[in-house]
């Protein structure tokens, strides 16, 4: 793919999307012709719409009054003492609907309205993005269809009920492994079959260009606020480390966004190691994956030698995805980001630790990022920001079973 990017070789490293929709070797729009008009319409309009003053005003108003932003940046004192560093938690768990997913859903629903779309579709794994999408559809009075793997529907009954109560139709994906990857396939098929009036709200920084860039832009509010809050609290907007968990990678991209070009800030992305990266039950994409194409973009994905997509495993449904977004693949390949992994067990222990030391029950996804603090050696006094991407209410069953509560 170097041909497409040969212009970039001699410039300073560009970590953001180029005019062809690529991040280095990754990205693009690998879609069948049936999806081309929809994706092209979006590509031609998304920057214009997002940059529009009226859009910005409405977006920020809703983030403030409806989502409850800015989300706090909380200096976790007892955790800081334990690790000998200043551990700040970016509290996305305090957002309306309980996770960072709502930032993107609000942005995309306003965009869909401006494109004149009447019907919204989405995919969901754990149900957090499905709930966020159903929520904004209720807010704006738009029809909402959420695709969810049949297996996940059984695992995440409370979120299914929430979506239904919000007025969404939840359609089980019964093909393949019946999880997130298959729900994404089904949503794409729906879009192919409904090419005119429907907008597809993808939940992570994956999919064909311009989705990864658009979603990262909506999520970038996380790091935008963090910088301001760090100035207020420490007088310095350059933390030493920024940590976030990565499934597809939307909270991480939001958390990294405004720090990416500041090479002094170390970016640490924590993948789900599952039962261990060598166990055959893992979702550590950058360790186990190879370059290829999944869900419309060139990235890194877990696959067989023949290019068939492999089923990942993670105890956390939100990280149970066989790929990462193309920008993550680029940050990984260039070494700008450090990609590490944490096992199911380590994440659950970290979830319990945060609960008992700070009185915050984190989503198991977010607990992966917290768990990596155990493996770091701080000299003392470093400023560390961890994205607490979601709250743990949805995971109580898993915590209860694991700890015998």
């Amino acid at each position, binding site marked *: 793919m170097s041909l497409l990017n040969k212009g970039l070789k001699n410039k300073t490293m560009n970590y953001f999307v180029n005019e062809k929709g690529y991040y280095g070797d990754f990205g*693009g729009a690998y879609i069948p012709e*049936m999806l081309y008009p929809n994706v092209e319409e979006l590509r031609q309009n998304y920057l214009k719409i997002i940059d529009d003053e009226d859009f910005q005003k409405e977006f920020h108003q809703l983030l403030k009054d409806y989502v409850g932003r800015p989300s706090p940046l909380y200096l976790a004192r007892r955790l800081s003492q334990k690790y000998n560093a200043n551990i700040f938690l970016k509290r996305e768990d305090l957002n309306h609907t309980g996770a960072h997913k709502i930032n993107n859903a609000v942005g995309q629903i306003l965009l869909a309205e401006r494109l004149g779309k009447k019907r919204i579709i989405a995919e969901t794994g754990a149900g957090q993005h499905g709930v966020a999408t159903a929520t904004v559809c209720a807010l704006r009075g738009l029809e909402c269809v959420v695709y969810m793997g049949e297996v996940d529907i059984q695992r995440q009954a409370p979120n299914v009920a929430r979506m239904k109560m919000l007025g969404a139709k939840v359609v089980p994906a019964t093909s*393949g492994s019946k999880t997130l*990857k298959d729900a994404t396939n089904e949503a794409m098929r729906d879009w192919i079959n409904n*090419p005119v009036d429907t907008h597809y709200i993808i939940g992570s920084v994956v999919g064909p260009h311009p989705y990864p860039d658009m979603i990262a832009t909506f999520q970038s509010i996380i790091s935008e606020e963090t910088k301001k809050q760090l100035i207020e609290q420490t007088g310095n907007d350059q933390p030493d480390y920024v940590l976030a968990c990565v499934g597809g990678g939307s909270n991480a991209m939001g958390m990294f966004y405004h720090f990416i070009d500041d090479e002094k800030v170390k970016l640490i992305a924590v993948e789900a190691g599952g039962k261990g990266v060598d166990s055959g039950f893992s979702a550590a994409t950058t360790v186990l994956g190879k370059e290829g194409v999944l869900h419309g973009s060139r990235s890194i994905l877990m696959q067989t030698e023949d*290019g068939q*997509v492999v089923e990942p495993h993670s105890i956390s449904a939100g990280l149970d995805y066989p790929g990462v977004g193309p920008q993550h693949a680029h940050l990984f390949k260039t070494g700008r980001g450090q990609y590490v992994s944490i096992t199911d067990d380590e994440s659950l222990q970290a979830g319990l630790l945060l609960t008992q030391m700070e009185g915050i029950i984190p989503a198991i996804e977010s607990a992966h990022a917290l768990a990596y603090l155990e493996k770091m050696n701080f000299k003392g006094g470093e400023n560390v920001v961890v994205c607490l991407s979601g709250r743990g209410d949805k995971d109580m069953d898993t915590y209860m079973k694991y700890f015998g509560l």
Partner: protein
Amino acid sequence: MNRIKKLFQEKKDILSIYYTAGYPNLGDTVAIAEELERSGADLLEIGFPYSDPVADGPVIQASSKQALDNGMDLKTLFAQLKDLRKTVSIPVLLMGYVNPMLQFGVENFCKACAEVGVDGCIVPDLPMVEYEELYSPVFAKYDLSNIFLVTPQTSEERIRKIDGLSNGFVYLISSSATTGKNLQVSDTTEAYFARIASMKLNNPTMIGFGISSKETFDKACKYANGAIIGTAFVKSLSADDVQASVKQFMKEFTL
């Protein structure tokens, strides 16, 4: 001359049949091709299976999954097709998604196609810009056709571009849909087909998606050089006696 070009020069109302390699049984790939040629098919599209076929409906998805479970992969497929040209003379295309092709290596893939006598491919999720900038020289080197899809929503400007990059035929999708829906020739579809016909493209056209019977095939042939049957054929295959089921399906086309 490439077999596809020759076919379109010599014949009209071309019947193309799609089926998935390695389905219903792993070893059926070549036997189905032979029987289809005997039963009157003019062109074959052999699908190489992929785990996540987003442009396909349930029937072709299920056949792909079965083929993968049977052990089909590109290496196996090319091995099966090694002696294809000893028994099959009609043009053959391979159809599948881009990731298996990328993992095999595009150059290796094209070389293997040329070696076994495959005439071209259809890769729905290979973007036109990547094909144009990166892969068209490789396809040309091995004299392979690359077939692009056009839908009712494809703009005239883009159709012209596709026509310019195509060598073989242009694949008209009857309506914006995944595979396996029935062709309804409504006024809007008719207007779409007529619009394409009036553009006088350099390449011949074939209509696919929703063609399931002699009746829908004949309808489609009014607007194009021929049509493609996929889902209905795949659905009709019986694992117990593949040849008999092919014969049975093709009966109405040879009357």
